[in-house]
């Protein structure tokens, strides 16, 4: 099937609620770091923005907005110990099997079978919610995570938006 048109659906939804059009970020070019390692020697970290955290951690507010906090989830966490608190998508399937948004069990298996060199010690769970503070996202949150990844020798960040 053809991809769903999320942008136009959301635009008309916002309009129907009487709000001005959402100012989408649109770019013609991207950023780039060449991948110069072999996958089976690379250290990979996981990041998911679906309001996901370890069950012992402070849960995200499902209705959060502009939430720039994140949870550090240890790599040995079984997926079944992850919980999702998020009102912005239907996560009923991911509640049952969180691997479909934060595939932590799968990545431990990939490490074991040698497909990747290593899964990083820490996975990142974000729960930004509706995000209107893009400058803070780009100048605080993202650089903070990037610095942490660098300090821990991570080569690749596997991002799952939700």
């Amino acid at each position, binding site marked *: 099937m053809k991809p769903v048109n999320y942008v136009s659906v959301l635009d008309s939804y916002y309009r129907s609620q009487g709000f001005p059009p959402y100012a989408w970020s649109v770019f013609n070019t991207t950023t780039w770091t060449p991948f110069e390692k072999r996958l089976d020697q690379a250290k990979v970290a996981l990041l998911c923005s679906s309001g996901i955290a370890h069950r012992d951690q402070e849960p995200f507010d499902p209705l959060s907005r502009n939430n720039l906090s994140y949870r550090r989830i240890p790599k040995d966490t079984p997926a079944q110990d992850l919980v999702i608190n998020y009102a912005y998508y239907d996560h009923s399937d991911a509640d049952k099997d969180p*691997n479909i948004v934060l595939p932590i069990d799968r990545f431990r298996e990939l490490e074991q079978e040698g497909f990747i060199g290593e899964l990083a010690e820490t996975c990142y769970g974000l729960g930004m919610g509706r995000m209107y503070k893009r400058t803070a996202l780009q100048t605080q949150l993202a650089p903070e995570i990037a610095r942490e990844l660098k300090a821990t020798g*991570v080569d690749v960040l596997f991002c799952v*938006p939700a």
Partner: protein
Amino acid sequence: MGLLSRVVEEMGICTVYVGSARDMMAQVKPPRPVFVNFPLGHQCGKPFDRKSQMSIIKDALNTLNTLAEPGQIVDLPHEWGEEFTYTPGSDGLPADQQPPARKDTV
């Protein structure tokens, strides 16, 4: 999230971005966008289907070696198996309890 991956990549870490909203990905242009044509919330496969999950993840990771052009969307061949749509307000909350949309405050 696309913005985050752009910044992380700019700071020297390679990123792979596995998403199910193709039109949003095309706008924000993360460095290595991988499109999975599944309903939102299933970017890495179907629940308890280890085989489909592994296949999507490996395909996505392989773009690190194969992506021809930065920002070019890679369309994975995986099929959900039935038609699906997206309705805002169908994400677990009735429409009148949805948080209001607001204009970007930069």
